[in-house]
């Protein structure tokens, strides 16, 4: 847990919407470790979970320190492709065990002329 923690009441406009995107998450733990208010905690698989949304002060530290862009704070978080987001009510499971209706690697609609995935250098 972060040593930045300060036990103060959260601001009046809490809770903030925190959106997780486990398909991109590599479970590094930066978001949990550097949250100044302990809003997040790890689930049994090491993925972040929103434990105390009411404590969030919208500092965006988790979002900026996430190397994989797998977490967003605020109502104006990007709208991902339908079904690509992991639904919160589904129980946690390691990557691969989750079901996605679309490729989890895609945010934007795929170009029509695209034939196969290119990892290009």
């Amino acid at each position: 847990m972060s040593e930045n923690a300060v036990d103060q009441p959260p601001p009046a406009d809490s809770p903030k919407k925190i959106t997780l995107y486990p398909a991109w998450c590599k479970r590094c733990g930066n978001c949990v470790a550097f949250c100044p208010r302990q809003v997040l905690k790890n689930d049994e698989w090491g993925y972040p979970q929103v434990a105390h949304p009411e404590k969030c002060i919208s500092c965006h530290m988790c979002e900026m320190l996430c190397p994989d862009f797998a977490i967003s704070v605020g109502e104006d978080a990007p709208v991902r492709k339908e079904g690509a987001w992991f639904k919160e009510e589904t129980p946690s499971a390691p990557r691969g065990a989750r079901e996605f209706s679309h490729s989890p690697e895609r945010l934007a609609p795929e170009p029509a002329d695209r034939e196969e995935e290119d990892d290009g250098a």
Partner: protein
Amino acid sequence: MSTVHPSIVYDWLRHDKKFPHVWCPGCGLGIVLGSLVRALARSGLGKNEVVLVSGIGCSGRLPVYVDVGSVHTTHGRALTFATGIKLAKPELTVITVMGDGDSTAIGGNHLIHAARRNLDLTAIIVNNQTYGMTGGQFSPTTPLGARASTAAYGHIEPAFDISALCATAGASFVARATVFHVVQMDKLLLQAITRRGFNVVEVLSPCHTNFGRQNRLGSQIDMMKGFKKAAVQASRWDKMSESEREGRFPVGVLVDRDRPLYLDSYKRICETAARLRAEGQI
């Protein structure tokens, strides 16, 4: 700084690339990528006005993920290609992303001469103190005594201080940040991108997979907390005594000065040559 929501990064990523990206879990390069994109969004530049150039190494993958003009070049030659791009198209904003080995070992000569010329470029040097991609061999920035794959009993060479090297070589703007100081890194990158001259931002980044593991530094979280502990703001650094500076380093703007720009001199010499030719003297 204008208000840019951090999720702006999704608008600047290349969505035909495979995500999550190739870097290790917790690698600082992802944080640098996010910070660079936020700085670009805040600078007001369009995607067609920016060119990202990288060399080889873990940092070489960075421009691949950003939806701007990008060049992935040979080892150590990012600044060389960037120099050519800038001279051919001076209206573009050219940013190079290099690692510590890429910039100070293989491309060491290019770095000091680009700084000496003071070409209008931004160089982001991600310093993880080792060659991360090839297995943790020592690089010119590996600290004295640290362990590496090729220094099993401790490194016997003193390290380069990249910021001091660039400042001495003549860079007009030199700043240092760490991935822990991400808000400050945003500001420094924005300042470097919007400024004219050779602008260097050295970013200290944890390589917990190779450097951290071999030196028992723990996870990237422990290494980032180490950065937090060791970093001193540049304004305070000047007032510290030699003993207090032991094992610590300054972050923030280290050098900010005006020097004649290579592009201006180049333009003048072209005009002189054209005039002499018109007068029939050459």
